[in-house]
């Protein structure tokens, strides 16, 4: 696999965006993130976004098949 060209969109490295993402994600998922949980959620979501940066940087062809196969 090759990395995407650097000018293609990636995930912003922005703490404010991450905080806003938690608020929006919690609201849309119907989750009430207790203030006591928030720091833990932030740490883990940061880890998730770091993993996603690596994954999304991979250039795969449009016809690349995903892993799971559904057999009717």
């Amino acid at each position, binding site marked *: *696999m090759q990395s995407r060209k650097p000018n293609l969109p990636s995930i912003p490295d922005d703490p404010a965006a991450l905080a806003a993402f*938690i608020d929006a994600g919690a609201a849309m998922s*119907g989750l009430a993130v207790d203030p006591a949980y928030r720091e833990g959620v932030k740490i883990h979501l940061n880890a*998730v976004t770091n993993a*996603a940066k690596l*994954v999304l940087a*991979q250039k795969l062809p449009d016809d690349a098949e*995903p892993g799971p196969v559904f057999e009717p």
Partner: protein
Amino acid sequence: MSMEWKSAAALAEGVNKKELSAADAVSAALQRIGAFDEKTNAFTDVLAARAHEKAATIDKRIARSEHLPLAGVPFAVKNLFDVKGIPTRAGSKINRERKPALHDSVLIERLEEKGAVLVGAANMGEYAYDFTGENVHDGAARNPHNPEYMTGGSSSGSGGAVAAGYVPLALGSDTNGSIRVPASFCGLFGLKPTYGRLSRARSFPFVASLDHLGPLARSAMDLALSYDAMQGPDHEDPICAQREVEPVTTELVKGVKGLRIARLEGYFAKMGVPEAYDAVDKVAKALDAHESAELEDAAVARASAYLITASEGAALHLDRLRERAQDFDPDVRDRLIAGAMIPAAWTVQAQKVRRHFQEQARRLFERFDILLAPATPTRAPKIGQKTFRLDGQEMLVRPNIGIYTQPISFIGLPVVAVPVWPDDGLPIGVQVIAPPWREDIALRVAHQLERDGVCASRPAKLPGAT
């Protein structure tokens, strides 16, 4: 040899020859659990009445001259397997309020049909989202070789129960490494079969895309015996392959001659402590394996497994997170909440990486039959330890114990984790990785390493035991 360290094969042979009864074997296991498990915390449910009843039926079958490959072998299961009559707690507080399971899981049924006897359900990390063996509700499982140290997780009690000599065999689950990690930390043999090989029916899931079930034991032969008993298609698990039983027990004696074996370099030669690499060296040398190979996208594979795990795990638990977030283990809860926010495009890309990485491995297996890699980056950390130093960096323990196991289970390859003892201290494991559906080769290698004295389990000296 005293009963507690007998292999499943030896116990079954003794019962089949009527040198001992299933009732004797089961009573000895229950007695030892009762005497010592307060210190190791491997079991959450000890099922004495059920076990005595089942042992009596096995003895009747033996009296009728039936031959059973697992006759009278006591075994444990991680408490995410359905066990008739008790709630399937899956390490959680929430699930223990469920109604008792109406039926045993398919793998329990298959083992008992071959003569094994379930003696209890084992401790585990909450909802299997764990590599440590710590559990805020049931307490940490403790490493029988040194109770101050982790068993590894999430099949923590399964590893502890076998290493403590309570049972010669236990079942666990492995989504990202949860059989191979406790095998490494507790000095055991662990088999994570090919994805889809063994039925997951009537077990509590975690990540449907990645969940596997399999055995932990103190020898490769015991893995093979139990694996043969559990194989076969099952319509109740849509992922379970429509493959007939491919017995491996009789294959073990074939040895390793002619196998092309390489050690994985690159990603798998970074971030570990020297003992992890020394263990691979020792195994490679014993196998006369001098070549090296690389899975170049292993880091991306691991990141993809991380995303899929967080996302599918969160989807599974979304209602419980909405309604009872306070009842989760905080470490698990916060990770699941974060997982609930992952955009679908990220996990779809991760699933595409999965197919791509599978192809990369397939090409490597055109050149090699077996790949070797460390099972864990370190030996067992202390219970409660939050960080460790890997390649000079201070890293969090909990998410990084599985760095070497995650890329392999991501593409469902069969693996046998084999134990190496660097000194008189704790053990560390090596992954013996085979192509899809070739558990037989990995088990042959493990068996040969055992015969050559390179890999072995060691009896744990439990506090207070004579």
